[in-house]
């Protein structure tokens, strides 16, 4: 597949997803924490989603990273654009046990820097379920602004527009 660029931050390494990441991915998607992003999912659905996230890099040249802290998988962050979504989206997930320490902020910042300097999309959004307050706060911390209207693919999703001019060029 496309070589996935590896990004490093102060605490984290972001690398392309590999088969060994699936167990953690499936556990996250089986949990209540996945309720804002289409979960909870059974293992068969989780596998198909995971395989799709892996395949996204080959299809589009961008995609999801697995977020590693001290050799432990702590979450995922990604740029994705499945058919039926109006814009390229940045999404983030923090896995159980790693919440509350700014992991998603740090990983998303690295992904936004990469987007601003390499991908350079015309628009980059985050679609966030209206009850997912933690994710909305994070989007605002990252400089995104709430747009009028709802996502055309999901009526309960708000649209946050990112400002890539704030990130590395």
């Amino acid at each position, binding site marked *: *597949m*496309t070589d996935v660029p590896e990004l490093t931050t102060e605490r984290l390494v972001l690398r392309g997803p*590999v*088969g060994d990441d*699936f167990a953690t991915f*499936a556990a996250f998607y089986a949990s209540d924490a996945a309720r804002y992003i289409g979960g909870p999912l059974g*293992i*068969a659905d*989780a*596998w*198909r*989603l*995971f*395989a*799709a*996230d*892996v*395949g*996204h890099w*080959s*299809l*589009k*040249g961008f995609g999801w990273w697995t977020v590693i802290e001290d050799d432990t998988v702590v979450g995922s962050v990604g740029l994705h654009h*499945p*058919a*039926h*979504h109006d814009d390229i989206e940045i999404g983030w997930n923090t896995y159980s046990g790693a919440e509350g320490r700014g992991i998603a902020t740090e990983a998303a910042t690295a992904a936004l820097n990469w987007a601003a300097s390499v991908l350079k999309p015309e628009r980059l959004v985050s679609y966030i379920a209206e009850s997912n307050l933690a994710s909305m706060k994070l989007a605002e911390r990252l400089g995104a602004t709430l747009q009028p209207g709802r996502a055309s*693919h999901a009526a309960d999703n708000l649209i946050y527009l990112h400002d890539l001019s704030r990130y590395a060029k």
Partner: protein
Amino acid sequence: MGHRDIPVLESNRLILRGPASEDYPDFKATFASYRSRFMGGPLNAYEAWMLYAAEIGHWEIRGYGMWMIHDKATEETLGMAGGWFPSKWPEREIAWIIWPDKAGHGYALEAVHEVRGFLYAQGGWGGAVSYIDPKNLDSIRLAERLGCVKDPDAPTIDGSDAVYRHPSPDRLTSGQIRDGIELEIAHYADPLFKPKGWALD
């Protein structure tokens, strides 16, 4: 964009490559249609796209997957065939789908014979099954032409599918099964000779 590691296979009339983004419209059209009813479809636009991305991710995760079947002469796509082993599958499967307007030319037979030979010889597979909806008579007939035998004792995916077991590599290396398949493929490739019966897939 293409996948850098997927081997390209060639047979008499076909060339098999990894699925690429430019092939997606053909895949989507089939999976949006009634044709896909035995393969979890019809799918909406989002589901079709996620499945297509998963077809490529499968290669990355398992090291094998589904090839896109192209007509060697025209390059147009005809369908897909290959190895399929997502989570919850009891055994590794050989799977196929031919676009609805490309059926009836023996393409699936030729493509599956090619990928099965590759998975056995290069992939080290000691055998394979195909999970087929009992109402999918076209696919059942194809499985039988490929030498598969229904295995009523094998575990199924969810109880609604029948398990067809492919001949082992040893049985396929020599003997009547392979000769019969290759004779039938040759007949399709040369329309002067008509095989007995009618190609459903």
